[in-house]
């Protein structure tokens, strides 16, 4: 899977029009351009370069960035923790808020609360992240002055509290890319479960509504939600590209954008491999979570 993704990326990115940013600039003479292309080895055929790249990659060497000459693995390593922190917080936030909101909507189906929350999730889906990001900055950093506007730490301080304060706005902005979807999944699957016979049985046994919901309904309602979350991880990682640019967050999303714009072939390929590996790991984690919450599924 990961090798396939790397091959696809390597060929596509090399065949895209343009070239490395150092070559494709206005103020570079034809002579310099030729010298640079030769020095980067880009005058050799793409398949030959891919085989060479793959041979090194299986030994753990992802090559060197064309834009900075630093090892690709090092550049990704610097940025990966920041993206994981951002995407992880956004995921926690979405799940933490999405499940209760979805359940409330399911229980109050058709009532005013349900309609208002549905409207809000529709708005949440429609609002672009870059716009929401700027609005959040203007409200909380410029007007209210309660949270920092951008970056991962302040210029002078580097405490845990400072880092968390910097994380709040981007995590909230990023969470909106998946929160409405989670809410909808929770709502519809809870509604479905509430109509099941065993819920009626549990209720008629005289169990309290709280026990019925948490012990019986939610447990079953969450099974499709977990698989939905697994499918949302790639969307979350995609959302980091814009979120990281708006909030000056030094993560992989921004790195990917710079790498693609600058046609940094080895870096784009390396990033794809890492993101593909994360997506594969996420779907594996979902499969494992299934066995936990759904006793009907067993790993064989």
């Amino acid at each position, binding site marked *: 899977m990961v090798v396939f993704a790397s091959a696809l990326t390597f060929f596509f990115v090399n065949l*895209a*029009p*343009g*070239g490395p*940013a150092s*070559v*494709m*600039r*206005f*103020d*570079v*003479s*034809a*002579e*310099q*351009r*030729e*010298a*640079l292309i*030769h*020095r980067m080895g880009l005058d050799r055929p793409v398949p030959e370069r891919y085989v060479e790249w793959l041979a090194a990659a299986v030994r753990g060497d992802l090559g060197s960035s064309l*834009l*900075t*000459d*630093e090892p690709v693995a090092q*550049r990704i390593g*610097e*940025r990966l923790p*920041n993206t994981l922190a951002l995407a992880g917080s956004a995921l926690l936030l979405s799940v933490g808020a999405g499940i209760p909101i979805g359940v409330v909507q399911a229980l109050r189906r058709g009532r005013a609360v349900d309609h208002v929350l549905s409207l809000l999730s529709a708005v949440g889906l429609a609002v672009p992240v870059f*716009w929401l*990001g*700027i*609005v959040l*900055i*203007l*409200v909380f*950093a*410029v*007007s*209210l*002055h*309660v*949270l920092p*506007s*951008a*970056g*991962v730490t302040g*210029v002078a301080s580097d405490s845990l*509290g400072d880092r968390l304060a910097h994380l*709040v706005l981007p995590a*909230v902005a990023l969470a909106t890319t998946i929160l409405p979807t989670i809410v909808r999944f929770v709502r519809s699957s809870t509604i479905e479960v509430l109509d099941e016979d065993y819920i009626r049985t549990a209720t008629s046994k005289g169990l309290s509504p709280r026990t019925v919901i948490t012990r019986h309904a939610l447990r079953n309602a969450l099974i499709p939600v977990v698989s939905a979350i697994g499918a949302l991880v790639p969307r979350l990682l995609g959302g980091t590209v814009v979120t990281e*640019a*708006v909030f*000056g967050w*030094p*993560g992989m999303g*921004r790195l990917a954008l*710079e790498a693609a*714009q*600058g046609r940094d072939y080895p870096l784009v390929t390396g990033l794809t491999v890492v993101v593909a590996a994360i997506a594969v790991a996420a779907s594996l984690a979902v499969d494992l979570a299934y066995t936990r919450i759904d006793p009907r599924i067993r790993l064989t």
Partner: protein
Amino acid sequence: MQLLPMSFRPSALILVAALAVSACTGAGQPAASGAPSAQGQPVAGGTVTIPIGADPTLNPWSPNAFVESLFINRVIFEGLTKPGKDLAPAPDLATSWTIAPDGLSWTFKLRDGVKWTDGKPFSADDVAFTFNDIVLKKELGAQNAASYAAVKSVTVVDPTTVRFDLSRKFAALASFLAYNSGIVPKHVLSADPLKTTSFNKGTPVSTGPFKVEKYTSGQSVSLVRNDSYFGPKPYLDKVVFTVVPDPNTQIAQALSGDLTIMILDNKAAVDRVKNASGLTVVSRPLVQYYWLALNQTDSRFTDVRVRQAFVHAIDRKAIIKSVELGYGQVANSPITPALKAYFDPSLSEKYPYDPPKAKELLASAGWTPGANGVLQKDGKSFQFTMDVGQRGVLEPVNALIQQDLKNVGVIADLNTMEWNAYIQKDVVRRDYTATVNWWTYPSDPDVFPYYHSSAAGKGFNIPGYQDPKLDDLLVQGQSASDLEQRKAVYKQLQAYTSETLPYLFLWYPQEIDVLSSSLQGVPELGLRDAVQYIGEWWLAKK
């Protein structure tokens, strides 16, 4: 840490609504209520924060030293000369220079007692290394190397004297040496001059008034005062360059008081920033002009009447007003008003916006209206494609030009392209018919590389215009040695290019800088030049 309030306060909601209307370019009350400009005696201390769009490469000659690298490289690396406040070359690492009578060799006397930040002495060897082993080594493809095509070699005469030997006269040498031509240390870079990452992406050894303290990828580069600097001690303690890729976030940061000075690329936000207290907005001249290139391999564009007609047809004042919010002036030659000693203001009304005149000129060139109002000649409609690179103001400008040309019966189809792909098609392959772009060049009227016929087709002569008379003027400008003689040549060149229009000149833009009101001592230059005087900047106490 304060948790997120679950409901917005009413004032915040109003702000959000206001922003929705104003397309989120920035508004609101600034938190920093800085004291209004407190002139007076400079005081020492403080940190200045400047935003940059991406991680810089700290080596002026690296092919990866893009625009975001210029600021820091100009602060930490010094050239033999630097742009004076009048933009004429002023002494920096060189204290004086003399030109041999034949104009083919220049001798620079270097400053004595200069030290690199690692304590090693700076000498003529470093200058010779920078040029002979980096710039003139063609296989390295060093950034800016094309500017030194006339330099044969650099020779160490003694530890404080170097000689540049030239293959042809090059009157602009001292000006070019002031432009992104910092001297780098031989003892650090001799093994790999362009790819030493501990230097380019770390803490380079330099000679300027500030030195790199810490490089944090994706976040910031902080500079501290260099105590072994040869010049007067700077007032500021620190200069921090923060990496903020999104221009709207940069504006928000300026409003929240997180930045001290920045270039306002999005001029649409200028009024909102002006209304913020604690911030000052200034406009600065630039050595830059926008142009429309018409490919001279297309026979329709070799007729000068067609080119002149286009300039009459394009409402350049309207373009300046709409995309630059008035911060610019109509251009009629490649010499910008920023070059005060050379600029000829008498040409400014040469091509008024005049569609009837344009139609008349086109008719005299054989283009007459067809049935649908589109001009025709020999049964063919006047229709072509303009390639549009996605950068800066190029997209709205092209749309306006398209409309103006349509008004005189010329159909321009716009082909919008991602920047990198655009460069490959239009610049590398020269596979285009018409395109708008700009040139920025060293603070000297020597525009040889952009106009000489030897640069047509592959060099910087984008339209591929070839004209022996223009070639002659360009060479004369390079050969003239004293200022008066050069002024005379470049006055002729301005008149000649405005008449023949190798490129269709559009406008000279101005830069808008946003400064914290407490920041003082910044010279009236574009920010990329003003940073070379950062030793004179100071922060008034609030």
